[in-house]
């Protein structure tokens, strides 16, 4: 059975990133936009792990990439906590989470 190649993993990662980007642009619900951001971060992680697997040193994957993935997962978790707190504060003051109804900064 053939194993999958690096380019296939990179394409899968690009596909997931593109879907996340489409969601960020199209959706109006700020919580779903947030989920799409998480998806984009996770797609970047997939790229890092794929490159870590492909860069073999002394017969083992290059673990620097996977260490970076841990830092990204940590930052993503912190970002979700702060972002959802901001969303709750926003909902308390405006009673909406639709981004097209939040226009007070419109010129």
């Amino acid at each position, binding site marked *: 059975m053939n194993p999958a190649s690096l380019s296939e993993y990179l394409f899968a990662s690009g596909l997931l990133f593109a879907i996340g980007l489409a969601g960020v642009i199209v959706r109006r619900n700020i919580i779903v936009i947030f989920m799409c951001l998480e998806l984009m971060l996770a797609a970047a*992680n997939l790229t890092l792990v794929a490159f870590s697997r492909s860069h073999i040193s002394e017969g083992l994957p290059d673990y620097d990439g996977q*260490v970076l993935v841990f830092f990204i997962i940590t930052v993503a978790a912190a970002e979700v906590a702060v972002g959802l707190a901001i969303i709750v504060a926003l909902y308390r003051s405006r009673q909406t989470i639709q981004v097209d109804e939040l226009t007070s900064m419109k010129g």
Partner: protein
Amino acid sequence: MPQPLFYLFAILAALGAISMILNRNPVASALSMVGAFVGMAALFIGLHAYLVGIMQILVYAGAIMVLFIFIIMLLDLQPGKPRSLKAASVAAGCVIPVLLLMQVFGVLEQSGWERFEELDLQTAAETRSGKIEESLKEGKLPDTHLIGRTLFGTPETPGYNLPLQIIGVLLLVATVGVVVLSKKGGTESSTTKNESA
């Protein structure tokens, strides 16, 4: 990871992601997100990154999904009435990702579809010692140990101790920030905005 399994999990992840952005109901979106992340975790495990795959399931499909569901329930959001999407944003949302994907595909076409090199555990065992050497000789990949060695460093390699400390500070700041943000009473500026709106 054998190619059919790779395609199975990649398609699972992509379907989860697509249903996440197409669902009107935010709870259904959150559950589709879990499908996408589980598919991605399987891809990580297929890349011999076992620890990262398990972390993906614990952190994303566990903690972050629960946080999203919790906030959706807390705000008591109803599945939105069908809203007319702006044609411009739908067009941009289709065109920009497709352009991105075409560019990625073009680059990958040029670089070819070569296979990964096989891992050579026996060679790797020669330069290691202790538990790592034992596991490698048994033909297992002790990736948790190896990541720990990379993270904390060995006498020869510096490791990532300073970034680790900085991440700790970041988590502390985020915790304090969340407590301050969700505290009641600190909303004078938002009430004045409400009056002007």
